[in-house]
């Protein structure tokens, strides 16, 4: 089933065009990795797909229904987003932060109940933050904050997962275990995932499809084995990249 689709999407930010006439379709069970140089518009594209900024022209569909026709709360049950940074202007605890993920599901004016706290504690357990549930978020390290943000998304539990550099700040162990955890959840929900990455090899490890944002007119989309070639990567990053065969798999290595 098509979970997220764009038709003739054009969008720009600060006068810079991000994509023009972009057609894209995200099907159930697909795991997309987005690659692109700094400032090419990966985050802007992700925000546009999530309905957080208006597209210049063209249409976006979530489960076949135009994005603009969705109610915000209902949309939040379908599409979830992990941002690059989180805002903690005012003091809050880890638990309260994860709890906001329940917002789309709570009826108007109803408080959180036992069921909600159970879901939150499970999510904190998944990202191994249970012991820090009552810590203030501003006393956490960068990696720990990232895990809290991920827990919030796990609590939101959407169908379409949009992740903006999910592995930022995470140590090697958590990069692998947490992305694995997300993939498990996505499969469980019969959902799909799009994540922005800077590590080609992580993409190869986790993704079925790749999106290479070369410029606004050239966004290469397709299965990993078709799109990810040293030739395309050189075009993408304008930096020499070598393909290395090792242990039965292939890896890309910047020169």
């Amino acid at each position, binding site marked *: 089933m098509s979970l997220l689709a764009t038709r003739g999407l054009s969008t720009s930010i600060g006068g810079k065009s991000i994509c023009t006439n972009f057609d894209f379709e995200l099907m159930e069970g697909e795991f997309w990795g987005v690659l692109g140089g700094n400032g090419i518009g990966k985050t802007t594209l992700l*925000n546009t797909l*999530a*309905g*957080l900024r208006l597209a210049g022209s063209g249409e976006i569909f979530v489960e076949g229904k135009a994005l603009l026709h969705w109610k*915000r*709360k*209902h*949309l*939040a*049950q379908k*599409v*979830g*987003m992990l*941002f690059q940074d*989180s*805002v*903690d*202007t*005012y*003091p*809050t*605890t880890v*638990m*309260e*932060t994860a*709890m*906001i*993920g329940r*917002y*789309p599901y*709570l009826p108007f*004016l109803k*408080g*959180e*109940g*036992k069921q*909600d*706290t*159970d879901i*939150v*504690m499970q999510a904190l357990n998944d990202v191994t933050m249970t012991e820090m*549930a*009552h810590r*203030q978020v*501003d*006393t956490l390290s960068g990696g720990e904050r990232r895990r809290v943000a991920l827990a919030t998304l796990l609590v*939101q539990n959407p169908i379409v997962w949009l992740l903006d550099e999910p592995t930022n700040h995470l140590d090697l162990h958590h990069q692998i275990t947490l992305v694995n955890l997300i993939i498990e959840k996505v499969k469980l929900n019969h959902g799909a995932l799009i994540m922005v990455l800077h590590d080609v090899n992580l993409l190869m490890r986790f993704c079925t499809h790749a999106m290479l944002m070369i410029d606004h007119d050239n966004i290469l989309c397709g299965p990993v084995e078709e799109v990810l070639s040293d030739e395309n990567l050189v075009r993408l990053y304008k930096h020499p990249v070598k393909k290395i065969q090792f242990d039965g798999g292939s890896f890309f290595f910047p020169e």
Partner: protein
Amino acid sequence: MSLLNREGVKFIPCRMFLLSILLILLSVLSIMFSLTSGSVDIGLAQIVEILLGEEKGMQARVILELRLPRVMSGFLVGGMLAIAGALMQVLLKNPLAEPYVLGVSGGASVCALLAMMAGIAGAWLNIAAFAGAFLSILLVFGLAGLGGTWNPLRVLLTGIVVASGWGAMVSFILAISPVTQVHGMLFWLMGDLEYAHNLKFGLAVLVTGFIIAMIIARALNLMARGDMQAAALGVSVHHLRYLVYFLASILTATAVMQAGNIGFIGLIVPHLVRLLLGSDHRILLPVCLFLGGSLLVIADTLARSIVAPQQLPVGVLTAMIGVPLFLFLLQSTMVKNRP
């Protein structure tokens, strides 16, 4: 304190109960303190009798016509300012935001002073102030492009610049006004609860504003994490922004109309509550109301009794109480959080 306990069961009823009792106790104590203070000595027992309507006479008139309206006005204004401050801080994502930051009080001041110059007094002065405040609200709304793309920093800058424009006009009016009027003008500018008219209007605004704020309290919790995050979790951020902007502005305008400019309550009370109880708006807003109200009542009582029969501007007292209290709490929580 959090709404959630260690096992994750929500609302610790005993804590909530204790907190409510404490707040009501604080409010009653501050009101009683204020009612018993003044040049005419009236005891606590007598006040209770007067309030119950069992005693008439001169002392009853002092309480019912002089002190009680002033106390009620102080409580309303304090509550409105504290809630408006909490709302502005969430709207602008800036801990330094306070009710006056967007120029609401400046607009009110200019119109009030112009009215004073024209010899207007009484209720019309308050109406002039309210009109000025509303003018400023619309001016900033239009100039900051609140209808289009939203940028908290742009809104803040617009507000600050408009406020300083009003400030210059205030100075200009003071400079050209006759000396006989300047004292009254200065007192109005520094905040004075003596002009306690429109109590019913104030009460209506505070109650309505508070109810609306409590309805959107959970959405505000999300908004505090960034507008994008809130939108991604299902909050209609555009609508919420307008609502919060006008809600905070009208609360501020009403407070300014009743009492002129009273500083520090709107800035410090919300932070004080956050330091003590956390940032959940469902707790923050009601506590702000009672704490802001009580603090202003106490400050006003001290302002009119410390150097009686002379009166100090109440803004001086709110700062004298609020600043050390806030700094003490800030220090102690910093020690607690970073061992």
